[in-house]
Every structure is written in C-alpha cells, then in structure tokens.
C-alpha cells in the first residue's frame, strides 16, 4: 500500500470543468467527481434546484502523492476565492491495481 493524500474539493458545479483542467495540467492522473451536491456556506444555501446549475456544488476527490497534493491546494486558492468552496487534504493509504 502507498501513502497518499486525499484531496477533496467542493465548489460551484459550473466551475468543475475548470478545476479538472487545472488538476490535469498539474499532473494529477486520476480523480472522481460527484456532480450533484447541495451545500451551505458563506455564499448562502445551494439547493441545486435551479435549471441552470447556478446554485449547485460538485465534489471532487483526487488521490495523489503528498507533494503534488500541496501544489494542487495552492493552485486552487484563486478559484476558491472567486467561486467559493473548500479544499481538504487528508493523509491516507491506497491500494491500486
């Protein structure tokens, strides 16, 4: 098993495409996305009930080596500032194929 860092990102659903592009540009090789997430935060309630996904969040989990995870977190800061949301780093161990 490998020591890895779980990077969790919750932000505006419409921003996720850009977040994925950012991750890929930083060399993250894999990630998983849950598209429909509701939430509460500084920007108020996100009910996800709008036709355009303006009040909806998405959740992304990327597992990568610890050093890369730090870089990802740093690079996300401007996006989180602009659009809101949160990024979490947690150490974990992983099994891959």
């Amino acid at each position, binding site marked *: 098993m490998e020591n890895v860092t779980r990077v969790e990102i919750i932000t505006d659903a419409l921003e996720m495409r850009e977040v994925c592009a950012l991750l890929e540009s930083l060399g993250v090789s894999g990630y998983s996305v849950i598209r*429909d997430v509701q939430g509460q935060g500084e*920007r108020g309630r996100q009910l996800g009930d*709008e036709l*355009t996904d303006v009040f909806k969040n998405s959740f992304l989990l990327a597992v990568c080596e610890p050093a890369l995870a730090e870089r990802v977190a740093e690079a996300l800061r401007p996006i989180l500032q602009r659009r809101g949301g949160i990024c979490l780093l947690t150490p974990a161990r992983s099994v891959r194929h």
Partner: protein
Amino acid sequence: MSFDLLLTNFLNPPILFFFLGMAAVLAKSDLDIPQPLPKAFALYLLFAIGFKGGVELAHGGLQPGVLKALGAAISLACVVPVYAFFILRRRLDVKNAAAIAATYGSVSAVTFIAATSFLGQLGVVSGGYMVAAMALMESPAIIVGVALCRLYSAAETGGVAHPSLSWSHLLREAFFNGSVFVLVGSLIIGAITGARGAQALLPFTDGIFKGVLCLFLLDMGLVSARRLAGLRKLGAFPLAFATLIPLGNAALALLVAKSLGLPRGDAFLLCTLSASASYIAVPAAMRAAIPEANPGLYVTMALALTFPFNVILGFPLYYSLIQRLWS
C-alpha cells in the same frame, strides 16, 4: 387593467399550478420535484416551442413585416441592458449592475411560453416568428452586459484582473448555451421539416404541451417561493428595480410594436419578452464571465420577483394596455 383579464389569467391551469407550488413552500409541505425532472420539462418545452415556431415560420415565410419585428426584438435586447445598467449603477457596483442589466435585457423562455398560453385562453393568435424573436433576444444582452462591465470596471479598479474570459469563450457561452441551442436548433429543424413533417409530431409538441407546462410551473412555484426568504436580504433598491423595470421595458416594447404595426398577439409577446428577465441563459453565462457578480442577486430578482410579477399581474396589465392602444 380589466378584472376579466386578471381572472382569465388566474383561471389558466398553468398559473394555478404556479400558485400551488408557491403554496406548498409557504405551507412547509415537503413537496419536491427533484432534478433532473424540471430539466426534462424545460427541455421538452424548449423543444416543442422551438419546433412549432419553426414550422410556422416556414409556413409564413420571412416577409418584410417579420424581418422588421425581428430587428425590433434584437434592438430591444441591445438597448434595454444599456439603460438598465446606468440605472443600476446608481446603487450597485459595476459587476452586479452589469450582470443584472444582462439579466433584464435577455428574456425568459418560460414567461414567453406562459404568455402564449395566456393568449390561447383569450383565443388570440400570434405569429410563429415570435419564437424566432425570442431566440434572437436571448444572447445579445449577455454580450452588451459583459462589454459594459469590462468598459467600466477597467475604469473603476486599477484592476488586479484575474485571467478574464476570452471573447470567443464568451460568445460561445452566449450563443451556444444549452437551452439556447435546443431552442434555436428545434426552430431550424421545425423550419426544415415544415408542416407536413410536423404532423407526426403534433401529439407530442401540441397534445401534451399544456400539461407539461402545468408541471413545470408547479416546480417554478416551488423554486421561486423558496427564494422569497432571500429577498429581504437584498435591500429595497433591487426589489424596486425588479418590479418597476419590467413596466418600463414593457412600455418601450409597446411603443415599438405599435409603431411597427404589429398585430395584437405579437405585440403582447414582444412586450412580455422585453419585460421578462432571463434565469436560464444569462446566469450560466454570468457565472463564467462575471464571477464576482452575486447570483443571489440577479437570479433571485429574476426568479422570485420578476417572473411571478409578469406572470400574475404583468400579462393582464400589458394586454389591457394593448386593448386600448390597438383599438
């Protein structure tokens, strides 16, 4: 405004279902129409209205009168956001003013559809080309709004500009937005198909149309009532703007329609288009193009105030004006 018109509007099932949705939220019912069902209703409505509009357009042809009306529609969509912006600037910062201006310059497809249903109740006909007018009014305001924003925010801040959206990306957001794409695409397909080919689609595009509209407005009632609580936080100016600007936009459109000699039904639709505010095409584009603007402001105003205002009071009001001016 005649009481009869108000009543005709109120007794239209889609409007009643809109009230039912609002009532459910106010009564704290757990009624909920989970996504993607409302998206399915919206997809259907855009498809049906676009397709039928296209078929009628093909049938009627692009006569000079039609071209004039389309030109007027586009002009309204370009002019409205400009004056709206300067009104809004008196109280709001550039970004929010621009986003709201774009919202009110663009149009609400659902308001348009509800307006055709109101005409149907009255037995008044309207031209299929008005769907094309609606489609043409969706995007220009987005461009105008962003242009105003860039022009004036360069002046406002010295500007630690974050990487801003390229114009090509912006045009794509404005013209290729999913719902605009379905609407315009269906319009073109309807025009290609023509009346003969449309026959086989009639039970779908016409038969079940009003029923789906009822369910969609039920959801709209839920969604806009949920936003009512947030209205208090907005402050008096946005509230006033959201209910007064439709009147101004409607009046302007009426003048234009009258001067072009549009028939009543078409004048009414142009008027509701102008009075309506977008909460489908514009919000998606604004999130990308002016991310600092607050959707809690421009979406809430369009959805929780202007939409119900137009649909409940605006329709009978605008039509009673037309009855006077056109007779």
